[in-house]
């Protein structure tokens, strides 16, 4: 009973958050809704007895992703006039809902064909230790690969976001070319 | 000896490669090209002497190329290919002579490559190899027209390219299907003609596959309805290109039908015969009538050439020994005659800077020798008795009468029409008042006479003494016809 009510609350937050995310005009309110959705999702992970994932979700999705996103919004100083003017937003949302619904129904239909049900968890399920054991035995290769992924993403992000000054003395002609390129 | 065919194909190619790597000047390039073409001609003559007219496919050379798909480098020569080979190798030195003062090097390279491509296509006995050379000979022509041609050349070159490529692509599809069917039947991949000729289709599929081939060749000939590229391309080509186009490449379409159509689809072609005969007859008359209305010399003879090629095709599809003999004979004589006439048109253009019939006139008074040659070639195109054309046309018309009397009458009308436009043209250009363009019309130089004389002599010989050539041709035709008749009991 308790579980069910917690689930109800969390899923409510999750759905409201995600709906809010796509319908708010202001970027920051979208981000806030996303934050709520992510927190609720973390809560659902906890409800599914994955305590470590619960924390990881908060740490990464909230503590890193949302924070960085907000950081970007704030440092961009998104003034009203820079926010896209979307008069037909809800119209589009309605249309795309019509488009997406069949796919969702298809996936859902396939999912319920599993006829699965929850059982009591085994000892150690969802805990850090069992997760670590799995992660560092069977999944060690993907894990290491993910570290490379993060590294490359970091390099990429730095490269993209860094401001570049092209005006170097030694290649004036270069510069000329770039200006041409920009046209 | 067994490399002789490869040598014939690749000597021009390697000449071009060598010249481009050495970055020769155009005069050296000219020398080299002429030497190579004369060597090739010598080799071909040697081949012709060695050739046994009764021997079927000879000088066969087979090397594996792509084993996985049974594609091989497979060459061979029989009478049909030898005839075309002889024509090409004969025409090339003459064309080089025509191009003597041509200092654009690309011109020479393209001619060399063109020769390789044509000889390769004529000699290859593997379908993929044939396709390779078939496409390869297109490229130099495309570039020659597009780069060195006359007005509107880019558009016309592209049109030529696209139309012929359309045919090629359909042919490719058919080749693939043929190869696959062979694989399915025998479990072995092969694309050589002998093994593929054993493939038997259901009639329905055979029609489609045959259509693929036919489309390519009909466009190349071109029969009426597929001819839209012809006149513009002939019109804007430079002279050597137009000579090759009309004298050789158009014949390659006929060659293709003869070689592949009558090897793989004897039966299917019987279904096509009425249609193609209709097309060719229409073409025969239509082209001739159009030719009358043309004001440009080159376009006129382009249509004339189309008309005669329709005649050749007709002869092919009448499929009796007279008509086939006539067709093959006409291939030779028409090639010689059209080469001559187009070269002379080129000379007219060089002198008068125009080939418009109306602005020419009085050449006979200005340059009598020129007029003589011109008249001769024009008349041999028209098939006046005494020239090779007459013999060939007569043979085909006999074949036509054997096939069907009405068609025979229709076919015979070509001679009349040809006479009509030729004489009218001659009257307007050679005689009459001297126009502005022809005021300083010089007569033929020695080099030009050397260039034209072999053609004229050969035409005369073929016209006066066809018996010199018929024995050379006849055995192959009778053998082939016989095998076809065995297969399907006559067309």
């Amino acid at each position: 009973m308790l579980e069910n009510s917690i689930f109800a609350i969390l899923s409510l937050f999750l759905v409201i958050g995600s709906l809010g995310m796509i319908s708010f005009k202001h970027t920051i309110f979208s981000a806030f809704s996303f934050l709520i959705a992510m927190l609720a999702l973390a809560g659902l992970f906890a409800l599914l007895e994955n305590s470590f994932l619960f924390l990881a979700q908060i740490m990464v999705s909230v503590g890193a992703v949302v924070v960085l996103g907000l950081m970007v919004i704030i440092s961009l100083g998104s003034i009203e006039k820079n926010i896209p003017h979307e008069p037909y937003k809800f119209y589009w949302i309605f249309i795309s809902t019509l488009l997406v619904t069949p796919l969702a129904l298809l996936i859902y239909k396939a999912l319920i064909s599993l006829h699965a049900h929850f059982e009591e968890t085994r000892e150690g399920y969802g805990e850090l230790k069992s997760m670590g054991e799995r992660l560092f035995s069977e999944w060690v290769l993907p894990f290491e690969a993910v570290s490379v992924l993060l590294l490359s993403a970091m390099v990429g992000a730095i490269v993209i976001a860094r401001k570049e000054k092209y005006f170097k003395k030694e290649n004036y002609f270069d510069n000329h070319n770039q200006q041409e390129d920009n046209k | 000896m067994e490399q002789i065919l490869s040598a014939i194909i690749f000597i021009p190619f390697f000449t071009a490669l060598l010249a481009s790597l050495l970055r020769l000047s155009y005069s050296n390039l000219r020398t080299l090209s002429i030497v190579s073409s004369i060597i090739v001609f010598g080799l071909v003559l040697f081949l012709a002497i060695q050739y046994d007219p009764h021997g079927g496919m000879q000088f066969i050379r087979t090397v594996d190329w792509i084993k996985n798909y049974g594609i091989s480098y497979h060459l061979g020569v029989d009478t049909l290919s030898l005839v075309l080979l002889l024509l090409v190798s004969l025409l090339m030195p003459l064309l080089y002579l025509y191009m003597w003062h041509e200092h654009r090097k690309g011109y020479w390279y393209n001619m060399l490559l063109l020769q390789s491509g044509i000889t390769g296509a004529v000699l290859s006995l593997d379908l993929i190899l044939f396709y390779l050379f078939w496409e390869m000979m297109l490229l130099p022509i495309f570039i020659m027209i597009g780069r060195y041609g006359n007005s509107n050349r880019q558009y016309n070159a592209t049109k030529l390219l696209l139309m012929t490529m359309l045919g090629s692509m359909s042919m490719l599809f058919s080749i693939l299907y043929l190869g696959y069917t062979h694989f399915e039947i025998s479990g072995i991949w092969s694309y050589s003609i002998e093994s593929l000729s054993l493939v038997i289709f259901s009639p329905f599929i055979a029609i489609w596959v045959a259509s693929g081939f036919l489309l390519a060749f009909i466009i190349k000939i071109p029969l009426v309805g597929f001819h839209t590229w012809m006149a513009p391309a002939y019109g804007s080509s430079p002279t050597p290109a137009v000579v090759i186009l009309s004298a050789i490449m158009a014949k390659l379409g006929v060659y293709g039908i003869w070689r592949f159509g009558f090897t793989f689809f004897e039966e299917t072609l019987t279904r096509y015969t009425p249609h193609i005969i209709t097309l060719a007859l229409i073409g025969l008359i239509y082209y001739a009538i159009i030719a009358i209305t043309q004001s440009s010399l080159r376009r006129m003879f382009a249509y004339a050439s189309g008309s005669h090629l329709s005649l050749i095709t007709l002869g092919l599809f009448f499929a009796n020994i007279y008509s086939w003999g006539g067709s093959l004979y006409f291939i030779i004589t028409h090639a010689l005659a059209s080469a001559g006439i187009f070269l002379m048109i080129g000379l007219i253009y060089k002198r008068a800077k125009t080939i418009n019939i109306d602005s020419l006139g009085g050449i006979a008074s200005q340059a009598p020798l020129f007029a003589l040659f011109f008249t001769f070639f024009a008349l041999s195109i028209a098939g006046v008795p005494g020239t090779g054309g007459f013999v060939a046309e007569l043979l085909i018309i006999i074949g036509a009468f054997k096939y069907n009397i009405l068609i025979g009458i229709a076919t015979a009308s070509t001679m009349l029409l040809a006479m009509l436009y030729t004489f009218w043209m001659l009257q307007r250009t050679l005689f009459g008042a001297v126009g502005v363009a022809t005021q300083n019309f010089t007569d033929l130089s020695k080099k030009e006479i050397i260039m034209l004389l072999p053609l004229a002599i050969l035409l005369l010989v073929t016209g006066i003494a066809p018996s010199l050539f018929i024995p050379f041709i006849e055995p192959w035709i009778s053998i082939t016809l016989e095998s076809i008749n065995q297969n399907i009991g006559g067309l």
Partner: protein
Amino acid sequence: MFAIIDQLYIILPMTIVLIGAFTLMILSQYKIFKLQQFNLVAVLFLTIALAIVLMQFGQIQKGYLFADIIGEIFIVDDFALLFDIMSITGVILTLLINTDYFQSRSYFNGEYFALLLFSLFGMILLAHAHELVTAFIGLEIASLSIYALVGYHKNNHVSSEAMMKYLVLGSMTGAFFILGTALIYGAVGSTTLTDIAIYLNEPSTSEAELVIIGATLIMITILFKIGAVPFHAWVIDVYEGSPFPITMFMASTFKIAIFAIALRLYLLDFLSLYTKWHFVLQTITILTLVGGSWLAITQTSIKRMLAGSSIVHGGYMLIAITSIGTGSQIAVPAIMFYLIAYFLSAVGAFGILSYISASGIKQLTYEDFKGFSERRPYLAIFMSIFMLSLAGFPSTIGFLGKFYIFTAGVESEQFLLVGLGIITAFISIYYYFKVIAMMYFYPNNEDQKPIRRTFSSALIVLMAILIIWGGIGTSLIPFIPSADALIDIAKDAINSIG
């Protein structure tokens, strides 16, 4: 299965690539190094890696790396090694051919090479992945690096815009991939391809809806990455917006890497799902061929035209993929061969374009090629060769590639597709020959520029020779493999999968 030292030997190329990436990343902090030095370092690492992979190729029997610890996640077979070779070669060529281009644009720096190597690492991982999550991670490594590389020219709006389009759509389809993986995991309880294949081959699971939908979602991602038509919206813009080396890299190398996983999936797991997909795949193939041709034919910029035509080339490969399901034996080697063929031609074509635009100015349009044959006769010849190869003109490797593909199509009796393929090949003649026509048919109106003889031009020559050799190479000449050898290699590689 392998001794530990062997296992280390097997992952050595991968490690070298990674170490190279790290080295370049660290070196990029020091401004004292010149771009050539970075280039040299990158090529050095890659050459070593390539040498090792070449030594391994054909010498290693199929097996799983560290199977006792990580299970069947990392597969080693000739198939994967062949893709390794192609990817590494692709990057080496990208680096070398574009040397001029790098030097004339000052926005390139050390990180560029690091990212390229990271991307290569992802591709190698993708080729070796025998498990969906690992494949996804490999795909993401490759893609994320490429996203950054696409937007590398930051002062250029177009570059940023291309990155935006690619990134948004790419991540979206990435989500599809992982959703598909999740669905398959839900049904099978594992994501290794072995387990999935076992699951699908059980008779009781003939109606595995989850796996079908999951596999379809994965297919969508793959189709997106190769730019099949309903998912093609990004291709042209992204190719145009990226710096030339990256366009070249995406068009040739990245596409190949995608096929590594696609083929592995289609050959191993999802083969039994084909009946369900056949119609869809056919439709997509038709759309791709038609749409790609339409896109290519309407462009005026050469880069955009090549981008559009790369969609068409994807369509040809889709013909073969469609044929796999209908029991064609030769389809897979055909794809492999076509990949090689397309790789060589695209590298050559883009290489020439980047070589030209290195000193040049703006987007290359057809107009810019007017009179090119007089300005640069040799380059014009090579450009013609590449165009001919792309158009599938005989005597080039492109023709053989198309020939194999169409043969495969005919073998599986997909006459509609083959017919369409041939028609699109015919259409492609138009836009490829347009370049040749522009080069040869028009007089030169521009100044003759001094010819730079650099490494790039040497490689362009090499590419051209390879293309011709791949098209007509025979076994007449000893010690040099003929055109046949390539398809033998492809067949060997395919056999190593099964």
